[in-house]
């Protein structure tokens, strides 16, 4: 090894070390940087969704507050559960108001659902007796009841003079359970 070679040895060695260090750091750091960048992108997307949802919830809250009467009526029309005692009390009240006798009520069972209707409905059958006008008014009251119900069959027959008996089957509805709330989706209150 002559003098010139010796003078080049150290720079070449330093260069080699620098190049190796560069490649090693590139190989080690770039995947971590790429991983971090992907994480940041995902976090940004989630934060954007969360912001939208927060804004949407706030907006929904304001709208619910401004329409509280209507919202309450809506929630009474389609309650969370059928609740047979409440339903019986309501029917009895309607019958009393319209002056019809209520010989029988077949309230829906806890998990019973209408044979033809949606899974959110339960079928109830009632028998009433009274004059034509009273039964007519009773049917009208049922149809316009604040609790949404749908008469599915009706049978009216005359039993004696000025007295009729009617059998009415109707579906009452309940809201499905909303236990599994999706906290990442935007609230749709429209």
């Amino acid at each position: 090894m002559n003098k010139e070679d010796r003078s080049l040895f150290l720079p070449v060695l330093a260069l080699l070390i620098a190049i190796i260090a560069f490649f090693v750091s590139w190989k080690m750091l770039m995947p971590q940087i790429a991983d971090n960048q992907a994480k940041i992108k995902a976090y940004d997307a989630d934060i954007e969704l969360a912001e939208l949802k927060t804004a949407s919830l706030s907006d929904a809250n304001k709208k619910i507050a401004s329409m509280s009467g209507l919202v309450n009526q809506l929630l009474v029309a389609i309650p969370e559960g059928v609740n047979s005692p409440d339903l019986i009390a309501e029917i009895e009240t309607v019958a009393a108001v319209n002056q019809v006798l209520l010989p029988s009520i077949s309230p829906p069972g806890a998990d019973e659902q209408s044979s033809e209707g949606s899974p959110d409905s339960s079928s109830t059958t009632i028998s009433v007796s009274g004059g034509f006008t009273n039964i007519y008014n009773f049917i009208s009251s049922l149809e316009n009841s604040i609790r949404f119900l749908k008469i599915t069959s009706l049978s009216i027959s005359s039993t004696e003079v000025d007295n009729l008996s009617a059998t009415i089957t109707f579906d009452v509805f309940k809201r499905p359970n909303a236990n599994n709330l999706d906290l990442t989706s935007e609230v749709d209150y429209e």
Partner: protein
Amino acid sequence: MPDEVRNAGHEEPFLEIDTPGERSGSYTLSYILVIIVSVVVCGFLVYYKFHTDSLAADKSSSLDSFISTLESKNNSETEKKVNDINSAIRILSTEKKSKYLFKIFIDELKKKITNDIKLNNLSIDSQGIVVMDGESKGYRSVADLALALESSSKLDNIEITGLSLSTDGESSQVNFSISANLVDWGSSSSAEEGEMELEGENGGLDE
């Protein structure tokens, strides 16, 4: 700069052109540049790695904060209420379409039944099939009733399914049975005719 590089420069003859010593000098300069670039790039990579680490941690804590806000009691209650409202609206808008208003049908039927007809039984089943049993003073009255029912927009397929004359002493009567189909059974047309509003303090809600 390494000593060797500086020493190599001092040992080169003055004004000697194209000697190996000069080539060595330019190589050395290149080496130095490459080393500097490598060091700068490595330094930047290390800095950028730590920068992105810190940024990801910040975003993560920011997201956690948003999630905890969303999961707060107030927001959960609001979300439940919104879901309840949406469910109720969905059920109402679906079921309203198939709600048949019996009151309107009875009103229509009252208009068609004349004084010489007495209905003993009226039934409407879940398929929208109407069966009427009754009695009249003569066959003509039953035929008139069937014609009147045919003229109704709410009934079709009207059939007189039974007709019999019975006598009780001097008086006679015709017992009849008529069946028909409700035209708008299961559709929304009858529901639209009725007043389907839940009156409330804010005006009303269309079912």
